């Protein structure tokens, strides 16, 4: 597990449950992932698969209760975040920047952009006792870094005066202003048009390279993942189904869910409307104890529903959690 040893950030066997009136929902089931320094990692999944819950646990905004961290560890640069409290926790978390999903809902509509950005800077640099002037300087610099036109004037604008793409830039600036080492971006471009999306991704890529950051990008957009990331984790119903380098995973998907997901995307080649994956995401209350994809899988066997598949190393960094690959770690007969 060299990948994990060198990791800046890693989640190990994280289990998160929600205690509701109708019962306990075991949402995350032994989720493990790792992000090395300078790496761009994608976490892909559909609505309700637990990708945002994962993000919330990491940045500490999961409502507890009803949420409950049943087991697992989250390591950041050698410290287990889940064992920290108070100021120590705040210091470690300050090194993780969050880029939230919906730029319109994430800025406070009644405060000027500058006020919100300066608050963020003042807090994240609280040990440095910066003067108001220095804070303003930092705010202007970071807005310029994310390519916001006329940063000085935009400081006194309210969020409603900015377009969606500009708001997203402000939020990226806010995350960058704290000088984080890891960025977590939760669906950073779903609210944006493709042309703006491309601009925002380009900007994020540049900022990451310039500052040598790592990023964990959470999305359902496979095209974006293919263009942006180095490595990918595929998540289904709270379980990681497959992981590997982006190239391997797109060229040779192994898990039936990954294959189904890739086949569901309409193609520019015009092969007709995809069939999608039969069935629906299981209710977590009655989720199968084994592989949670088994009810929708066309190659399911008896063992699938009862026994949770372990991650199997196929080659390099390509791992899959699927009983099909248990013994013969060879090419899947239906690959492609």
């Amino acid at each position, binding site marked *: 597990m060299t990948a994990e040893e060198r990791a800046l950030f890693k989640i190990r066997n994280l289990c998160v449950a929600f205690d509701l009136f109708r019962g306990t929902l075991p949402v995350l089931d032994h989720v493990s992932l790792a992000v090395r320094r300078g790496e761009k990692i994608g976490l892909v999944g*559909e*609505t309700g698969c637990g990708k945002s819950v994962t993000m919330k646990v990491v940045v500490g905004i999961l409502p507890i209760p009803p949420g409950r961290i049943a087991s697992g560890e989250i390591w950041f640069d050698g410290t287990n975040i889940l064992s920290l409290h108070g100021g120590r926790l705040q210091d470690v978390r300050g090194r993780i920047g969050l880029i939230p999903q919906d730029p319109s809902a994430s800025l406070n509509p009644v405060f000027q952009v500058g006020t919100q950005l300066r608050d963020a800077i003042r807090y994240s640099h609280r040990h440095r006792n910066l003067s108001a002037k220095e804070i303003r300087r930092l705010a202007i610099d970071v807005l310029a870094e994310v390519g916001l036109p006329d940063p000085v004037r935009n400081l006194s604008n309210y969020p409603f005066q900015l*377009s*969606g*793409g*500009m708001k997203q830039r402000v939020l990226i600036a806010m995350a960058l202003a704290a000088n984080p080492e890891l960025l977590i971006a939760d669906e950073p471009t779903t609210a944006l*048009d*493709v*042309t*703006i*999306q*491309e*601009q925002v991704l*380009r900007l994020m890529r540049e900022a990451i390279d310039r500052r040598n950051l790592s990023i964990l990008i959470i999305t*359902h*957009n*496979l*095209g*974006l993942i*293919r*263009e942006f990331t180095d490595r990918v984790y595929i998540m289904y119903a709270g379980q990681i189904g497959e992981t590997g380098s982006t190239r391997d995973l*797109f060229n040779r998907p192994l898990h039936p869910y990954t294959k*189904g*997901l*890739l086949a*569901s*995307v*309409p*193609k*520019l*080649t*015009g*092969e*007709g*409307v*995809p*069939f*999608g*994956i039969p069935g*629906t*995401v299981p209710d977590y209350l009655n989720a199968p104890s084994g592989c949670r994809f088994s009810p929708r899988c066309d190659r399911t066997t008896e063992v699938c529903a009862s026994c949770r598949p372990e991650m199997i190393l196929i080659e390099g960094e390509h791992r899959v959690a699927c009983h099909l690959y248990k013994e013969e770690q060879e090419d899947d007969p239906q690959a492609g």
Partner: protein
Amino acid sequence: MILRLDDIKKYFPVRHGFLQRKMEYVKAVDGVSLAIKRGEIFGLVGESGSGKSTLGYTVVGIHRSTAGKIIFKGEDLATRQHMDVRAISRKLQIVFQDPGSSLNPKRTIRQTLELPLKVHRLGTRRERLGKLRELLQKVELPEEYLHNYPRALSGGQRQRIAIARALAVEPEFIVLDEPTSALDVSVQGKVVRLLLSLAKEHDLTYLFITHDLSLMRNVASRVAIMYLGKLCEVAPTSEFFKNPLHPYTKMLLSSIPVVSEEEESLKPERSVPKGEIPSPVNRPSGCGFRTRCPLAMDICAQEEPRRTLVNEEHEVHCHLFNNSRIKGDYDWND
């Protein structure tokens, strides 16, 4: 020709300034002419703020057009009187983007689906119930759902209900306003397939509004691109993707993130998109796209580009092509 739009405009007044005295207009749709053939699936693509949804709403009568003609089966809907609306709306229906908000959460599926039948006074109570069962069957849902509320259904199932509601009055033309963009990809395909098979079965014509060009590639027979309330390019789908002409079309196509090498090779060479769509209140003079266009010339700021027919079915609105080819107008004869 089932529907023809002739220079349709939809302006929304906005007041501002001292004592709200200054009157300006958001030109959401600013002179769109289109002709949609019977039985075709016409794709309308654009970014948010391009006016594509406003155009769809204007066609079905949710908005009254500011100017222009909407000729549906030879009848001008733009001048429709209050009483005609019911007759027309039987033939023209709409499916909205987000079934979570387009279905009333306080009504059971049965109430939701029965309302259009009641409005149009179709059938007795018993006949209506039979009709509802048939509708659910058509959208591949079990009959039991009639007594459920929308919250008990998944996103895909809710959208099927919204489709059933549109089908209830047996329309000929349906505006689909981003019918699958609120759905997961693994569900999207099934809903689109259902829409396609329904179109065939009931001889429906669709105006399919979306921002997803990859989806359009596989669904539409013709595609139109809209930008700031105007059309940029209209062409049959295969031609559109093989030979895109308008700089905006190229920019859009090159920014689509795709999932395979094969698709990558189909995209036009990468032109880095710059800028954002301007406000429709202060649209740039001349061509609306010139502020972002890599090939903008002097004339683009001065004159609006006219419709140029590159060939019989491929039209482009761009000065690059204005003088080189035949300038044409639609042949409106069906």
